[in-house]
């Protein structure tokens, strides 16, 4: 029988903006599934409003954004602000894609929890989540 955690962490994963690079996000989604998370993949061309709305309906604890278009300095903060507007700042925002180091520091100040850039081993992403949500993760 499935060894499903009693309270699996739910993660809404999305590509925001005009950006068709979906290889990375799909690889990450699979890795998160394999680590025991419930991943809700919402697909390409999402707006910050759509992502937040999906996270609320899905009662997700985490939003994972994937951005390769260069628009990360607009889109990540837009999602953080939309969460504020919807009174849902408890939802953790993290992500990855093509994002320069300087921008990562700025985004963290704007409320993004973590960013993973190309070449990051998938295990590193999983380990980060495990540390962030230790109580809700299935014991291996």
């Amino acid at each position: 029988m499935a060894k499903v955690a009693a309270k699996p962490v739910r993660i809404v994963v999305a590509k925001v903006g005009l950006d068709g690079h979906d290889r990375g996000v799909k690889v990450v989604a699979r890795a998160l599934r394999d680590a025991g998370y419930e991943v809700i993949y919402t697909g390409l061309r999402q707006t910050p409003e759509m992502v937040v709305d999906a996270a609320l309906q899905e009662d997700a604890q985490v939003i994972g954004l994937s951005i390769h278009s260069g628009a990360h300095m607009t889109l990540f903060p837009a999602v953080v602000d939309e969460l504020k507007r919807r009174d849902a700042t408890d939802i953790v925002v993290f992500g990855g894609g093509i994002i320069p180091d300087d921008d990562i520091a700025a985004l963290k100040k704007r409320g993004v929890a973590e960013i993973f850039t190309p070449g990051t081993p998938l295990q590193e992403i999983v380990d980060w989540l495990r540390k962030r949500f230790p109580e809700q993760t299935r014991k291996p």
Partner: protein
Amino acid sequence: MRALARAITLVERRDPGVRELEEALRTGAKSPGVAGFTGAPGTGKSTLVDAVIAFLRNQGSSVAVLATDPNSPFTGGAILGDRIRMQRHALDGKVFIRSMGARGHLGGLSLATREAIRLLGAFGFDQVILETVGVGQSELEVAAVADTTVVVLTPNLGDSVQMIKAGILEIADVFAVNKSDIDGHARVVAELRTMMNMAPKTPWRPPIVPTIATRGDEEDAGLAERLLRDGTPYRTAEEILDRTDN
């Protein structure tokens, strides 16, 4: 909306606290109409559900979708991807879409489905649409929960006949032969007719509706109307279970 989403999480987790909440909500709550879509993976269930949402919204109903996908038996994790096909309804406040992991429950739905439907009714939703896991073998549960069960088949799937053998024929209120833009759809319709003619006579002969779910808007009205009207509830869960037992 967040309260509803949270409540569904509690029933998914089988949290005892949810009883109280449900009792509190039950007063005055109506029970929504429930349509269920089942069929093998990739047959177009989510895309059909998307079209049916559009139809029901045009009629003025509020619509909630409970879309189930399997959890990995090895890790317990899941990728829940049905929502992708329904994104055009994303910011419609009268559409609520919830993806559920089956979390090891067999039968094609989440164990929490019935309670989630009750909650959706309490929160005022007129219609609920269920989408099953789509393994295609043991998913008869949907018929016991839904007023109308739509079984989705497609050409070139190879397993359409197998599905019928697995008891899916008995639970269908309506057959959607989706992807009717692809060669071979006429053969699926013919096969279905033959199967039905060989089966014992029943009071309800499920209509066979050819659909092209990807056609979107223009398709919505006719398709959904036939799927839901033709399959109007006509029997109780007990009758269905009786029939699937033998």
